[in-house]
C-alpha cells in the first residue's frame, strides 16, 4: 500500500483491526443479529396468524431495536478506544508522530463507526432477506429508513463514546460512564416521555426533550417518515406545527449535530489535554 495514505485512514484501519478482535464487538453484533432476525420472524408470523399481509409490525420492531442495541454498540466501542489506547501507552506513541490530535480523534471514531456498521450489516441483511418476499415498494422505503436509523443511531453512540473516552482517566471508568449514558438516553428518557412528560411539558417541551436526546430524535424522525400516525398526539403536533417535511428537516438537523458535535468536543479536549 502507498506510504502516502492519509493518517486518518491509517488510524481508522488500525482501530478497525483491533475492534474486530474485541469480544464485546462480536457479542453485541451477534446479539443485534439474533434480535433483528427474531423480531422480523415473530412479527411476520403474528401478521400471518391474524390473516394480515405486510411487514409494518416488523418495521416498527426494527425501529425500536435501532435505538436500543446500536447505541450501546457504538458507545461502548467509542468509550473503549482512546481511553484504552491511553492506558496502554499507545496513545502517547501515536500522538508523538507527526499527526494532529484531531486526526487521532476522527480516525479512531471513523474506525469504530465502520466496524460497528459492518457488525450491524449482518443483522440488517438477514432481516432484509426475510422481509423481502412479503414486502411492497412502500415497505422498501420504510426498510431503508430503518437501515439509516440503525446506522446513524450507532454512529451517534460512537461520538458520545469518544468524548467519554477522551474525558475519562481509565478505560474502566469510560465504559461505566458510557453504559450509564446509554441507560439514561436509550431507556430512561423514553420512560419519562411515555409517562409524565406529555402532561408536564406540553408538546413544545416534548419536542425539546426529543431533540436533546439523540435516540428519541432518531426514532421520532424514522416514525414521522414511515408512519406519523404512530406518534399519537405528538405526531399530530409535529405535522401541524412543521409539516412532515419540516419535521424531517428539523430532526435531521438535530441528528447532524449529534453526529458531529460530540467528536468536535472530543477533538477540542484532546488538543488541550496532556497525554
Amino acid at each position, binding site marked *: *500500500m502507498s*506510504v*502516502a*495514505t492519509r*493518517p486518518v485512514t*491509517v*488510524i481508522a484501519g*488500525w482501530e478497525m*483491526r*483491533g475492534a474486530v*478482535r474485541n469480544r464485546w464487538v462480536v457479542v453485541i453484533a451477534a446479539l443485534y443479529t439474533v434480535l433483528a432476525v427474531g423480531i422480523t420472524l415473530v412479527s411476520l408470523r403474528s401478521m400471518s396468524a391474524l390473516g394480515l399481509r405486510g411487514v409494518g409490525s416488523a418495521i416498527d420492531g426494527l425501529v425500536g431495536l435501532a435505538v436500543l442495541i446500536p447505541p450501546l454498540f457504538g458507545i461502548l466501542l467509542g468509550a473503549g478506544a482512546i481511553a484504552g489506547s491511553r492506558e*496502554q*501507552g*499507545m496513545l*502517547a*506513541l*501515536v*500522538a*508523538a*508522530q*507527526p*499527526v*494532529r490530535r484531531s486526526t487521532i480523534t476522527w480516525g479512531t471514531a471513523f474506525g469504530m463507526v465502520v466496524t460497528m456498521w459492518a457488525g450491524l450489516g449482518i443483522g440488517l441483511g438477514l432481516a432484509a432477506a426475510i422481509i423481502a418476499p412479503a414486502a411492497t415498494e412502500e415497505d422498501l422505503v420504510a426498510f431503508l429508513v430503518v437501515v439509516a436509523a440503525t446506522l446513524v443511531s450507532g454512529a451517534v453512540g460512537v461520538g458520545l463514546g469518544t468524548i467519554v473516552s477522551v474525558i475519562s482517566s481509565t478505560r474502566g471508568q469510560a465504559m461505566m460512564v458510557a453504559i450509564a449514558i446509554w441507560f439514561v438516553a436509550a431507556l430512561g428518557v423514553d420512560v419519562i416521555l411515555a409517562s409524565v412528560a406529555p402532561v408536564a411539558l406540553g408538546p413544545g417541551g416534548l419536542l425539546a426533550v426529543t431533540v436533546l436526546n439523540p435516540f428519541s430524535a432518531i426514532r421520532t424522525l424514522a416514525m414521522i417518515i414511515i408512519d406519523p400516525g404512530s406518534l399519537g398526539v405528538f405526531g399530530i403536533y409535529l405535522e401541524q406545527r412543521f409539516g412532515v417535511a419540516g419535521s424531517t428537516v428539523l430532526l435531521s438537523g438535530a441528528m447532524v449535530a449529534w453526529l458531529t458535535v460530540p467528536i468536535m468536543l472530543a477533538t477540542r479536549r484532546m488538543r*488541550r489535554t*496532556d*497525554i
Partner: protein
Amino acid sequence: MADPRLRVRRLSKGYGPTPVLDSLDLTVYPGEVVVVAGANGSGKSTLLRCIAGLMKFEGVVEIDGEPIDDANRSRIGYLPQHVTFPRWAVVGDVLTYFARLRGVDPDSGILPEGFVPGLSQAVRTLSGGQRQRLALAVALTGEPSLLLLDEPVASLDDASVPALAGVIGRVTTGGGSVLLASPRHDANTLNPDRVTHLSEGRIVTVPLVPDRSEDLGAEPLIRLVRP
C-alpha cells in the same frame, strides 16, 4: 559551533499547583548524546513528553531553530517509558502502522540484524526486552534527527544494552542527536557526551565539551571523558 538541534528555554510545567519543571533550559547539539538523570519523580519523563509534544507547557522548545509543531515532529522519535502494543498485532503490523503514520517505508535500516523480533511474531509472545526493542524500532521510524528515549535500558537484558549503544552510535554518527532520560545508576551505560542532572525542576549539567558550558549555564558536577 553547530547550531543547536534542540533548544529548550524557560520550560515550566506543573501538575496542578505542584511545579515539576521550573524555567528549565537545555541545549542539545547535532551528534550529541545527552542524558537527563534524576531521582524518580524529578520530571525526566515530563521533560521528554513536553519536547515530544504530548504535554502543554510554558516556555519555548525548538528543533533546528523552529518551534516544534505537528509538521516538524517528524524529526523527532520518541520512546516512552512504558508501552503495551495490542495483543492482536504482530511485529510487522506495528512497524507498518507507525511507518504509514509518518509516510515512510517501515525499514529504517539503522537497526542491526536481529535487534527487532521477526515481523510475523505475535506481540503477545514478546518478552519485556523484545517489546522495548520493538518500541525503539518505532521511535527510529523515518530516521528522526532527534531521538528522545525514556529509560531505554530499563527492560533490556545485559546483552541488549551494547546493541542499543551501537544503535545510538549510528544515530549520532549520521548527525542525529539523542536525549535520554535515565536514573543516575545507569546514566553512563550508553556512552553519553553529557550527563545532566534534573533537580528541583532545573537542569544541573555536566558538559564534556567545555566551551558549550556557557550555553548551559551551570557548574559541572562530573567531567566525562570518552575512551
